[in-house]
């Protein structure tokens, strides 16, 4: 293949940031019509490479040559939350009639795009009301509306349900068939094997392998990413289940994503997996349990009713790993120490009278850093400068540090690389073995089936089915998730 045919040509890319070097001399060529997977652990330099390819960030050294516009779908979406879908899609390139925006044409453009690519979305919905999975569609539509010759997607499937992932890849195949080059950054190796023509693995800012997908294997890619073998999950110990959390006829939230009349029980020493497509009431359930969303119905922790406010629930031994780690779980401007303390700060041992106990705090932070392998220069480093995976390790580590009676984990391994995900999953199993009741919400059915003792399927805010570990039926669960019987 001649070099002139390349859609995107990166040569000798080096990128220095003040505190670190993200890329140390990367060559990457994308050909028209190919789907190219870029794999690597958190902090390997994938997102930086994506931004440089799309021209959003200037490389310190090296050259970037593209044959046409480069679209970039961000890992953390870059949408204007307060605007409508069509406004976001046409932003900066609004169709005009006279001096005004041609609203009808803009809406039609969005409808046309979503028809063409099979990405259903209401053009008039306000973005902040959309669940993450749908918001991502808007981001993809916006980039597609630029008719790019190269489309870069940074972790596009991290928040999507199985059916949505299939739809997305169908879209990407269709785009590739028209001659676009697609670069997909992902952790999910099944997707790489299933859909990519070529795969490149990056580690520590360097390309460690690149070649046709047909000539490699899942295990080989994983080893190249980790630089060794992926650790096995912790073993499940036999536990004596006792009642820990009971929800009876709980309804919360409003609209399409509300929770409706859910009843279930989570026993100590077991992991209950909530299987379902995003936007079927899982977020409302977690927020109601956390104490920040009003609900009808009854919830009990142990023998007692759940205390009314979040502080009381924390004190009673409840921990919730929320959906949005940067907004709801962390104070990103703060250090690791101050973040590890958050939520336990008002109780001993982290407080002493009016004051914070700085020694106890430092010790708590060191324990989380050590036990969860948080890669940080120091416990005084600001969380903002850590990679997403390491931020997530802090969130999960903090929740498990107090040995909670009941843990609600919403997508605990979202956007986390293979090695770190295995570590977090092992820690969840260990908490279960130690007697904690765990409610696991995940949009990755594999994770649910791997970790859960029982699975509840949620569809349109209701519990649509329940399965014991001995009788997991993947096809049946998948059908219930999609609204079937």
């Amino acid at each position, binding site marked *: 293949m001649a070099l002139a045919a390349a859609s995107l040509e990166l040569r000798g890319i080096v990128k220095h940031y003040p505190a670190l070097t993200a890329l140390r001399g990367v060559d990457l060529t994308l050909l028209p019509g190919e789907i190219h997977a870029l794999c690597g652990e958190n902090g390997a330099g994938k997102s930086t490479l994506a931004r440089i390819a799309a021209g959003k*960030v200037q490389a310190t050294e090296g050259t970037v040559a593209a044959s046409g516009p480069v679209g970039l779908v961000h890992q953390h979406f870059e949408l204007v939350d307060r605007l409508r879908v069509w406004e976001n899609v046409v932003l900066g390139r609004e169709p005009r009639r006279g001096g005004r925006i041609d609203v009808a044409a803009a809406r039609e453009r969005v409808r046309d795009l979503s028809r063409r690519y099979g990405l259903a979305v209401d053009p008039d919905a306000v973005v902040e009301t959309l669940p993450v999975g749908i918001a991502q569609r808007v981001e993809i539509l916006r980039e597609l509306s630029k008719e790019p010759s190269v489309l870069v997607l940074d972790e596009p499937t991290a928040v999507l349900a199985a059916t949505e992932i299939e739809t997305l890849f169908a879209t990407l195949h269709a785009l590739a068939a028209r001659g676009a080059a697609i670069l997909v950054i992902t952790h999910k190796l099944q997707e790489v094997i299933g859909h990519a023509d070529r795969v490149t693995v990056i580690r520590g800012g360097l390309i460690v392998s690149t070649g046709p997908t047909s000539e490699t294997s899942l295990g080989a890619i994983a080893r190249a990413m980790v630089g060794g073998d992926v650790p096995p999950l912790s073993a499940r110990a036999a536990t004596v289940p006792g009642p820990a959390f009971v929800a009876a006829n709980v309804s919360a939230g409003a609209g399409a994503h509300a929770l409706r009349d859910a009843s279930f029980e989570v026993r100590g020493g077991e992991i209950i997996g909530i299987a379902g497509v995003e936007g079927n009431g899982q977020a409302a359930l977690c927020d109601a349990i956390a104490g920040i969303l009003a609900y009808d119905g009854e919830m009990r922790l142990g023998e007692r009713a759940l205390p009314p406010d*979040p502080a009381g629930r*924390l004190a009673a031994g409840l921990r919730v790993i*929320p959906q949005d780690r940067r907004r709801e779980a*962390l*104070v990103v401007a703060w250090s690791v120490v*101050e973040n590890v303390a958050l939520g336990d700060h008002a109780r001993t041992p982290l407080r002493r009278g009016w004051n*914070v106990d700085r020694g106890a705090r430092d010790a708590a932070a060191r324990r989380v850093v050590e036990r969860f392998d948080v890669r940080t220069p120091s416990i005084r480093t600001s969380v903002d400068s850590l990679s997403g995976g390491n931020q997530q390790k802090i969130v999960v580590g903090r929740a498990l540090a107090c040995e909670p009676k009941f843990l609600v984990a919403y997508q605990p391994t979202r956007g986390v690389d293979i090695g770190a995900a295995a570590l977090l999953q092992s820690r969840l199993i260990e908490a279960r073995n130690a007697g904690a009741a765990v409610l696991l919400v995940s949009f990755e059915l594999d994770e649910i089936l791997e970790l859960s003792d029982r699975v509840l399927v949620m569809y349109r805010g209701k519990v649509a089915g329940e399965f014991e570990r001995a009788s997991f039926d993947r096809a049946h669960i998948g059908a219930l998730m999609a609204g079937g019987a």
Partner: protein
Amino acid sequence: MNLRRAAIFAAVLGALAAGAMLLAGANPIAGFAALARGALGGERQISETLVQTTALLFPSLAVAFAFRAGLFNIGAEGQLIAGGLLAGLVGAAFVAPGWIAIPVVLAAGAIGGGLWGGVAGVLRARFGGNEVIATLMLNVIAALLANYLVVGPLHAPDVAGPETAELPASSWLPVLLPHTRLTIAFVFALALAGFLRYVFARTVFGYELRAAGEAPHAAARAGIDLRRTALLAMTLSGAIAGFGGATLVAGVLHRFNVELSPGYGFIAIAVALVGGLDPLWIVLAAFAFGILQSGSLTMQALAHVPKDVVSVVEGLAILGLSARRFARRSPDAA
């Protein structure tokens, strides 16, 4: 905030001041010389600069306290007036030995300011009202209400101006230097700055305030009651400003006058932002602005630079710092 940034900021502000002086048709070098002479030229000048520093420091710390909790309290002026008014009324009526009268007068100031800030806090906590608008409006209400009360219903019989009767001398704050207006209020202000730094860095309450200010969603999930922190932050912020008003009454004017403050509560916003909301840097910033305040009249008299140049520079400082707050949210943060 660090030394390098502080130096850059001082340089930029100096350049702006020089430009403003040139525009006003004056010689900037003569202007700065006169400013320095007026503010630092002798014991009397330095003590007067420290009086201004003290007057600015209380409302600046008040503003910073609320800002750290995520509340844009621009009502320090009104809270200062409310505190000063109550201190003046209580002080004029209450005759007792100094060791009891002075604490009572200062407490009255803190209560007056605290109530005034608390109104905005209640509006915010109970009804979700915007504290910017509430505190801005409460400034106007405080000024007009104070004027009405001292001229009208609470008018003291043997007083001519819009002011309360004079406080008995036992209620006056002790002076640090004889024949100056520099009182122990200066020491109180420095101690308060140190205390607030301690509160933010070491106490659970300070930690909760900062969490509520930095990341309200995360704070709420961590069991921090946002309504309680909003109410407390606004009340305590008001109390600090009101305490400052009381020190002006008991230390400088010895009565409440409607012209108690030439806008200390507004300049305080600039001081707090220049100081990066850190109490120790705010002390330095208040000193810098104190120099401008106390030297401006000399500058006008000797170098024919209108003293309004000082207001222009203060305004530019606020403008520049607000722009920086927005600029920080740049997209290329990775």
